[in-house]
């Protein structure tokens, strides 16, 4: 076991969670009223956890940097949420969802956690429907499903292209109910600046009121971090502008191990970068790959002509197009997992077949789907021998009903009509599978500090399947953490309120104030964004879709130098004691500067390709990822030792008792 004990329950896989719930200690309802819990982050995981914990009777304080919990970036998830309901009768089961998730993650996640996730997935749908989440329905009134990448069943539930929004608003409503009852105190526009440990246990946080600039102390018996992923270390990503790693990184510096930081998901279907001014990237839901076909021109000269504006994609016939995913992966075609689809796009663009000005875009084409749906709709509408225009009109209506908001979003950004000319897409940073190491109970290596949702490392291995992030966030928040945390808190029923006037709080508050003062004292000329963009470029060019030893070593050096420059020179106008968005950004970028280096170090040490981590030195002759189970079948959990470069590696060996390790194939 070593230093990392996953605390996975014994017994058969399918019984572990039930057995564990029966075995763990409970806190009686009267005692729950004497226990305080801090929840940082109010997206799906944090919002759901806060609502359930409050409902169970604990006193909950929530913190979010946004002006409302409803604005957490879970809201931007478009396509859907998986659940092993088997409503379609296509052979789905807990086991199949478990299997798909482990395989999709390229055999780098913990079996017991993933099985629990698959079990709880069905509860989520029941729960959300009861809360009034308006999932899409069929004409018979039952719930509709669609397919996502990397699976052969239809298990994704959705609410148009706004599934994340509707699920988040469901959790937000559940929170509001508890706020109204006085069981949750919501601190919006507040940012966690650091974690406070007393006797080795997480007992509170230092927070900054982002409106007044006031530094505050908040104590609790346990602290839950549900603060999302760290994709913004790349500057350009599909994350919200404010998404950050600060809470997780502060906890890391205080003793929480950071696991698999290099596992990043680069999503294949995003709107390509348009210029230097770009501040963020926009995702086009993976659900589009249900109906869209991905291609580039077969001949390089056609690609060049398109780039120069001399040729239009619609002028190329079927035989002149290379549907490269269908060609390379006939079994899964356009629905291969995200990492595979992204790398395939990069491969074609690097080879000179890209189709936009920068040569970094491929087509996502709906013409075939419009034809297919148009003909079907004509039949069901009783139109005999429909003409071409009628078929296209009817087909476009069906596509609009399915993806209308995505098409509108695309048109607004790119200024082209995707019903008439194929969409252009390119991969972009979207999700981070790595995060704080947690055991089966979602506790980090700091006692009393828990971590849920994207912020932890637990369920997706080296690559996450589509529509699984929402599932994990809500499972952690509604159904896992509120129960496992009780086991820990059962020892705290006689502790009483945690005082905030202790030396421990004094010391951490001083650290926070000193750090802010140092940031404000920069004497250079460059803004926070200048440094953030530089960091992002290093990350994208050297730690992005494909990595190699030389680049990673350079990245480590460059990030370390950039960090030094940043701390000495970053220019922050205004003052610390009032609203100051530049200071807010600076604190977050400072932490990204450290995380980025650990990220590169982790990628450098993992001498294999798996999931989202592709090392150029480790690939098959056909360019597929080459995993090394003999040497790397473990979770890399890093312990902070003063500087990112000094971080110490701890390994949690992954044990596969129920699944045979295979080379992932989608051919």
């Amino acid at each position: 076991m070593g230093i990392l004990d996953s605390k996975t329950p014994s017994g058969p896989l399918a019984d572990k969670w039930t057995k564990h719930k029966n075995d763990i200690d409970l806190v009686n309802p009267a005692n729950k009223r004497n226990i305080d819990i801090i929840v940082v982050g109010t997206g799906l995981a944090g919002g759901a956890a806060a609502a359930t914990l409050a409902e169970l009777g604990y006193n909950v304080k929530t913190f979010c940097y946004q002006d409302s919990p409803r604005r957490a970036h879970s809201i931007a998830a478009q396509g859907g949420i998986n659940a092993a309901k088997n409503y379609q009768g296509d052979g789905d089961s807990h086991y199949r969802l478990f299997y798909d998730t482990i395989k999709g993650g390229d055999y780098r996640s913990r079996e017991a956690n993933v099985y629990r996730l698959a079990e709880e997935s069905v509860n989520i749908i029941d729960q959300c429907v009861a809360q009034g989440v308006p999932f899409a329905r069929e004409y018979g009134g039952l719930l509709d499903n669609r397919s996502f990448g990397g699976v052969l069943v239809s298990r994704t539930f959705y609410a148009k292209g706004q599934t994340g929004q509707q699920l988040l608003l469901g959790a937000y409503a559940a929170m509001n109910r508890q706020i109204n009852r006085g069981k949750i105190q919501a601190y919006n526009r507040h940012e966690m600046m650091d974690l406070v440990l007393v006797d080795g246990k997480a007992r509170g946080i230092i927070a900054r009121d982002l409106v007044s600039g006031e530094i505050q102390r908040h104590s609790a018996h346990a602290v839950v971090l549900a603060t999302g992923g760290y994709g913004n270390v790349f500057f350009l990503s599909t994350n919200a502008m404010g998404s950050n790693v600060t809470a997780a990184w502060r906890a890391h510096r205080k003793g929480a191990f950071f696991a698999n930081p290099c596992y990043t998901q680069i999503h294949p279907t995003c709107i390509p970068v348009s210029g230097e001014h770009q501040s963020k990237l926009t995702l086009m839901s993976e659900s589009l790959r249900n109906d869209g076909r991905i291609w580039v021109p077969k001949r390089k000269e056609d690609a060049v002509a398109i780039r120069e504006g001399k040729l239009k994609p619609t002028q190329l016939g079927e035989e002149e197009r290379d549907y490269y995913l269908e060609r390379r992966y006939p079994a899964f075609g356009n629905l291969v997992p995200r990492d595979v689809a992204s790398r395939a796009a990069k491969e074609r663009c690097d080879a000179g077949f890209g189709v936009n000005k920068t040569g970094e875009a491929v087509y996502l084409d709906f013409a075939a789907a419009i034809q297919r749906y148009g003909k079907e709709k004509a039949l069901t509408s009783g139109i005999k021998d429909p003409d071409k225009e009628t078929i296209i009109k009817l087909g476009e209506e069906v596509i609009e009903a399915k993806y209308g908001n995505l098409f509108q979003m695309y048109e607004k950004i790119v200024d082209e009509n995707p019903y008439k000319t194929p969409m252009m897409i390119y991969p972009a940073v979207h999700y981070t599978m790595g995060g704080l190491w947690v055991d089966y109970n979602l506790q980090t290596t700091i006692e009393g500090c828990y971590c849920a949702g994207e912020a932890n490392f637990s369920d997706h291995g080296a690559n996450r399947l589509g529509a699984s992030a929402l599932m994990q966030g809500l499972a952690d928040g509604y159904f896992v953490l509120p129960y496992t945390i009780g086991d820990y808190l059962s020892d705290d029923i006689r502790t009483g309120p945690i005082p905030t006037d202790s030396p421990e709080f004094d010391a951490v508050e001083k650290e926070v104030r000193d750090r802010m003062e140092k940031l404000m004292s920069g004497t250079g000329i460059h803004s926070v964004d200048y440094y953030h963009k530089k960091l992002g470029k290093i990350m994208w060019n050297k730690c992005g879709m494909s990595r190699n030893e030389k680049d990673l070593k350079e990245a480590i050096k460059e990030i370390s130098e950039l960090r030094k420059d940043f701390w000495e020179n970053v220019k922050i106008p205004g003052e610390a004691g009032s609203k100051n968005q530049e200071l807010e950004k600076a604190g977050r970028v400072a932490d990204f500067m450290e995380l980025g280096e650990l990220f590169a170090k982790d990628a450098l040490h993992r001498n294999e390709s798996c999931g989202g981590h592709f090392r150029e030195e480790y690939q098959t002759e056909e360019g597929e990822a080459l995993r090394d189970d003999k040497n790397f079948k473990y979770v890399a959990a890093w312990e902070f030792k003063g500087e990112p470069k000094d971080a110490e590696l701890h390994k949690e060996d992954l044990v596969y008792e129920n699944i045979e390790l295979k080379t992932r194939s989608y051919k």
Partner: protein
Amino acid sequence: MKLTLKIWRQKDASSKGQMVDYTLDGVEGDMSFLEMLDILNEELISKGEEPVEFDHDCREGICGTCSLQINGEPHGPDRLITTCQLHMRKFNDGDTIVIEPFRAKAFPVIKDLIVDRNAFERIQQAGGYISVNTSGNTVDANAIPIDKHAADAAMDAATCIGCGACVAACKNASAMLFTSAKVSQFALLPQGQVEAADRVQNMVRQMDLEGFGNCTNTGACEIECPKGISLENIARMNREYLSASVKG
């Protein structure tokens, strides 16, 4: 293109604000409106001035954080989008653009273009939920079939992002469109009907307490709403409210 920007600057809630003029060169059509402001801010920082603070987060039109009254219209001249989705190609070289915060008594200014929308939070807290525990021990999701048209209508109402454009567009600063969207979503679903009467009364009471004005059916809110929330929701809320009042 080169633009003249007239921007509301205000130090904090208690200070007096004023319009300040800036000129900005090198703006491209592919930039989003907020990216244009990013560039202005970079220039201000390099000159040692304080940047213009504005609310923004997802920059893809779904979180509802960004606001801005642009040339007198919430989220600017384009329709069915938020400010972050507005692109500079909608403007011309030499244009003057007036940028203000959302104006309403219930939305006090915090700093520059940022307003306090906590009044919306309190309206939701007063009843914007279905009182079901999150224990997971609910009936199977397919136990109650829901008419597709009702589910779709509920979804249309539920897409409100809570940005406050409806309030900023309304001459009475009414929050009826915002409140009615949530009332409608639940009133249209069987799960929400159980406590529909209490919900509409509690939410409307809170809305009035916050100092939002009444609705006079001008429809400005519907036109400016980035999510196309329909005025029909206000009619539905009025019916719900009336029937709840009659039932007592």
